[in-house]
């Protein structure tokens, strides 16, 4: 029989090894893309020309940018394959309440959360993924695909101008830049603050790196998930958070 203190520290797996691995690669790849990409775009700035000098020329920068693009998009592909495997082989749910799929409840949670900030109500009962976590995930998942598409057009303009009108290249250039600025702002400001710099987490959310979370943390941050785990343990007697995406 565990003491009350022990049971609150009971460890659950929140992220699988694959998810942790992909997060690290995307983290490195995305940062690399931002540094090399902005150094190319704002090449007239002192910091960009200095960085280009250190790297050994704009050619290397372009090569590195494509290298980071390939590893980042490889993660997207791996994730898509995982989703298919999760759906077909593991018979998991991609749109259920514990998934990352956006729901009406997220809007309710958002409004409830705002009310809570102003002291007019209690903290909403978040499920496995809160609305801002879903937003973070979907932003990068969809963003990597659109960035990948415009990037691919810019990588092989001769090939694509055989299929689509020439001004699409200019369009791709504009979209690639502005979406990059938006994505960087989102990831390095919003994601970093909402995932890692919140007072209850600061300085770093470890669960995406070691995969672990505790019963106490689940009850505090994702009470809806805890109810779900309890319900499934009662029905199947083999409850583990590792099976949910």
């Amino acid at each position, binding site marked *: 029989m565990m003491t009350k203190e022990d049971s609150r520290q009971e460890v659950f*797996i929140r992220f699988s*090894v694959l998810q942790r691995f992909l997060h690290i690669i995307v983290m490195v790849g995305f940062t690399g893309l931002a540094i090399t990409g902005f150094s190319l775009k704002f090449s007239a700035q002192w910091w960009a020309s200095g960085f280009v000098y250190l790297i050994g020329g704009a050619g290397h920068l372009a090569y590195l940018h494509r290298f980071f693009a390939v590893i980042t998009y490889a993660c997207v592909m791996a994730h898509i394959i995982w989703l298919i495997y999760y759906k077909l082989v593991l018979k998991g749910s991609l749109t259920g309440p514990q998934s990352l799929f956006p729901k009406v409840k997220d809007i309710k949670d958002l409004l409830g959360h705002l009310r809570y900030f102003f002291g007019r109500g209690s903290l909403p009962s978040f499920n496995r993924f809160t609305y801002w976590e879903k937003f973070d995930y979907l932003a990068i998942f969809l963003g990597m695909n659109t960035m990948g598409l415009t990037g691919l057009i810019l990588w092989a303009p001769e090939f694509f101008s055989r299929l689509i009108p020439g001004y699409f290249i200019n369009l791709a250039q504009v979209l690639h830049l502005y979406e990059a600025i938006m994505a960087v702002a989102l990831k390095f400001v919003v994601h970093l603050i909402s995932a890692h710099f919140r007072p209850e987490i600061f300085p770093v959310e470890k669960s995406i790196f*070691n995969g672990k979370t505790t019963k106490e943390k689940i009850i505090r941050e994702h009470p809806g998930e805890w109810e779900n785990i309890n319900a499934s343990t009662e029905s199947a007697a083999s409850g583990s958070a590792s099976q949910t995406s």
Partner: protein
Amino acid sequence: MNKLILFILILIGVALIAPEARADDPVMMPPVLDGKQRECMDCHRYPNINTNEGAYASQAFCLECHGQKACQKTVNGQKVSLRVNLQTFEKTRHKYAACIQCHTDVARCPHSSESGAQCTECHTVHGEEEIHDPHLRVDCQACHRTSKFVSLDKKTGQVRLSHFNDQKAPISLTDHALPDVTDPEFCKRCHTNENKVGAAAAVLPSKSFICILCHSAPLTIGHPIFWAALIIFLFGMILTLSFWFKGSVEEEEKSLHRKVALTSESVWQTLFSRQVFTLIKVVILDVFLQRRILQESVKRWSIHSLIYLSILARLFLGLLTYFAYRIGPDSSLALSLLNKNNGFTAFFYDLTGLLIVTGIAWAMIQRFILKPVHVAREGQDNLAIGIIGILIILGFLLEGTRILMTQIPSSMAVYSFIGYPIAKLIAGLGLDWKLIYPYLWYAHAVVGALLIAYLPFGKMKHVFNTPLTLMMNYKMK
């Protein structure tokens, strides 16, 4: 106010007249312009060739003479045209380049070139990917020009575009058109039975990335032989992995998904803990330096290390070559490492090859002649040793043949201290080695592919098993 209007009118006038000056044919500048002698600076200036205007000025200046039929020189009493045909030049991708961009040393007195056109001012040499490293001794122009006459400079071992045709008559090389070099038929300019430049009699495929174990190699799979080897290798790896996961993982018996999840979890927890330092120590001392075999027997360690460390060193140099070429294709480091005739590179590959052969020979002596009691003589072991041995011997034979065939000067070839004596030795046989070279090459490639395909099956499986076992043993402790 009037001045301003006049100025605007002049501007409009210039704008209207200026495009007229650039007609289809470049404007020739005669020595006398508008009844007046030309200004000195008309010619004695260096145009900014990084601008279209400068490039055009450079072309116009050179074509003033080289555009005329009368432009010719006399070689051995025969007249050779020096006229550059603008029509063919303008069809090439160089049409916006200044003449002196490539012909860097012609704008001088006396007017002649020593170095010829310089391609590498803008372009980099081809690495293993496009074309294989033996072509480092071939001038760019020998392929990228329409003239099909090439010759071998015996002093430097360099293959050049020839100024003479087969009848020793001087020929004009002013055609600036670029031939289609992607056509495999094109390579038969040199790769024929009767070539005199030391090319193999057949067009050989490039190396595959599986060759990186021992050579510098491109990042492509290449010939079907290598595809087959790779497919067999991957199949074997899948078999091995599925065999490993047949057992239970942390009491999980059935679900493969759970087994993989538990294994990867355990690997992750080890990698991101202090245990990783122990693991690095194990990799250095046990996997690379083979401490455990050394503790058992110095002789066994010597035999194994001669083979294993030499291959590892070759792999390291191959990877270094790849990255050096990727980072700086023009760097002297990349060029020396790519070039098999470079002193260091030739010596290094010959030395490591010799060490491997020594190891193999020593192992053979142990197995077949001395036969100590503790040496288990399994057929599988003999097969592995045999494949590597044959591979290296074929490699040395191939190197000797290449040195003989390409006729590189002996001052260069001596650094291949195994290959060069072999070349001297087989020269006495009086065979036409450029016909034999392709067969030897394929033999070496097939045996190499066989080794890769064999890795996950017989004795060679230990290259995956042993390091893993060593690392897991330390985790258990």
